[in-house]
């Protein structure tokens, strides 16, 4: 088998090398160069200026708000995602399939539309919003609204990562655990969680990246009040509209930095997952 040379069109060296060159060229032009330019622009007026831009009061506030949003969104969706995945993979109940489909709504809906929906529902003229107004609770155009739409937009990431894995792993290990006398919490801590930990981390990384970078839905419900409801993504746009290009790029470089860290963590997690799965693939069951 190894001797046989498959003679398909794609196997000719010049086709192969021109495809590789094209792929590299496109990646450079569309992905790498823009990323480099962000940092180049951010440092265009020198390091001191870059630092001054970042420590600007409004920028600092935007960074703080963005971190707050991520710090609230990630745990909420972590718990929600694990519960949902556990529910749909460990129990049979009517409407299970529908529930799995419903999880994908945030993926299917444009974030701007999601923002508008929340505005309609919770805004001062909305169904729930007007009642909340009477109770003196304001959700829209303040940080709780930003957290709410971010949770909405990022809620499928963890569940989507876990459901296929937990389906594939099945219930047997947990059944073996409960027969041996483990309580529900012990089952989760000692059996379920170790089995899903890398997929869970992967889901968290994706959730975090999206929570930090979300623009569309947030821009609808935030109202862009500088120093109050401005997240980092919104802040970049505001600075740019103010013709503060260096400032805009300095803030953008922070987002780009988070993106790079995300990619590194994501690759590491993928590598760990592959390593965890590898010995299972070449095990021989029948000897």
């Amino acid at each position, binding site marked *: 088998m190894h001797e046989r040379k498959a003679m398909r069109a794609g196997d000719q060296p010049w086709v192969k090398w021109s495809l590789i060159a094209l792929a590299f060229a496109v990646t450079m032009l569309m992905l790498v160069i823009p990323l480099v330019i962000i940092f180049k622009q951010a440092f265009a007026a020198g390091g001191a200026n870059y630092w001054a831009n970042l420590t600007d009061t409004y920028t600092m506030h935007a960074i703080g708000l963005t971190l707050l949003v991520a710090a609230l969104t990630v745990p909420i969706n972590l718990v929600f995602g694990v519960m949902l995945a556990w529910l749909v993979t460990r129990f049979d109940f009517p409407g299970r399939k529908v529930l799995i489909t419903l999880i994908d709504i945030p993926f299917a809906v444009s974030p701007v539309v999601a923002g508008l929906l929340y505005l309609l529902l919770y805004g001062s003229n909305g169904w729930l919003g007007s009642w909340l107004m009477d109770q003196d609770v304001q959700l829209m155009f303040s940080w709780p609204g930003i957290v709410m739409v971010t949770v909405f937009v990022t809620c499928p990431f963890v569940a989507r990562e876990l459901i296929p894995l937990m389906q594939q792993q099945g219930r*047997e*290990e947990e*059944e*073996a*655990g*409960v*027969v*041996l*006398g*483990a*309580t529900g919490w*012990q089952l989760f801590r*000692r*059996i379920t969680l*170790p*089995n899903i930990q890398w997929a869970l981390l992967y889901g968290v990384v994706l959730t975090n990246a999206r929570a930090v970078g979300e623009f569309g839905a947030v821009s609808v419900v935030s109202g862009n009040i500088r120093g109050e409801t401005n997240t980092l993504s919104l802040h970049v746009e505001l600075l740019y509209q103010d013709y503060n290009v260096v400032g805009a790029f300095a803030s953008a470089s922070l987002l780009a930095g988070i993106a790079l860290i995300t990619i590194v963590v994501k690759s590491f997690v993928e590598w760990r997952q592959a390593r965890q799965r590898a*010995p*299972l693939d070449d*095990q*021989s*069951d*029948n*000897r």
Partner: protein
Amino acid sequence: MSISIEGITKHFGSFQALKDVSLDIPDGQLVGLLGPSGSGKTTLLRIIAGLETADGGRILFHGEDVTGLHVRERKVGFVFQHYALFRHMTVAQNVAFGLEVMPAKERPPAAEIRKRVDMLLEMVQLGQLADRFPAQLSGGQKQRIALARALSMKPQILLLDEPFGALDAKVRKDLRRWLRALHSEFHFTSVFVTHDQEEALELSDQVAVMSAGRIEQVDRPQQLYAEPSSQFVFDFLGHVNVFAGQQNGTLLNQDDAWVRLPVGAAERVGQTAQLYMRPHELTLQSAPAAHAHLPLCIESISLVGAEVRLELSARGWATAEHWEVGITHTQFNSWQPARGDHCFAVPRVAHVFQAEGQAPETIRWQSGELDDPAAMI
């Protein structure tokens, strides 16, 4: 610890998996639940363990009702078909799991746990694999670890769900012998599920044959094979040759073939009856006998094994399945039959089924009624 199963029923949606199943398992016995897939045997086992809840009926351990007791409280050992080892734990951690999750007050000290685990691993002869992960073990090793884990809590009841189903023939045989030895050493009560009749008959003190959610027959292996109480059990355990005909007095007849029932057999007129015969209850002759005219044609010859197995088709009458008869290698060598050759079957013992669902009547032909030795092969 004895197990009593009383009138258990179970539905999955509109499918009835178990229909009023009752079974008594005395203390210390090894009982096999045997049946085709979908017969409800695994469901019954899972209900005994508490992994599944019955719609009706009761489960008693040692006379005590455990129907409402949670799996965790039933303290049974359970061995899963696909081992269900904890994949992220080492072999030793797997075996220690049951002890480690005990409430702090009852949990033995760490040193004690380590000693127990070492002892259990010695018992399954896999002490050298304590630090391996399940993915690094072969199927047979995994199943032995699963057994050690199930025995770690010193259960008085051990339940096994197709324990050797995924293993190859040789490993299966080893493990079977080994389970039997463990059973007599530790004296727990075991119930195991299998669809392999050989395994059930070899391993069990008693076998419960299940079909379509019901227990067809419970008996010791010898009884089960020699005296099946229904057509289903007959068909399911080993090969059986069937002759269906119209009964007229003592004569059972179908087209060119007929069998004359021996004196004393129940006589009927104008009714259908079926004759069930095991391969060893028949001999083959070159000419028909006085009491039976069953012309056959040799379809295939299998020489592998302790005896030569012939597959035969009916000539001038009809059977649903080919007949199978075994002859010794000596007989085969002197007769030298070939594919397409004709011969006649002569029953010595047969089991008559008069009607569906009825117990059979076993009939024997006296040696005087058997044919002249000249025609013998």
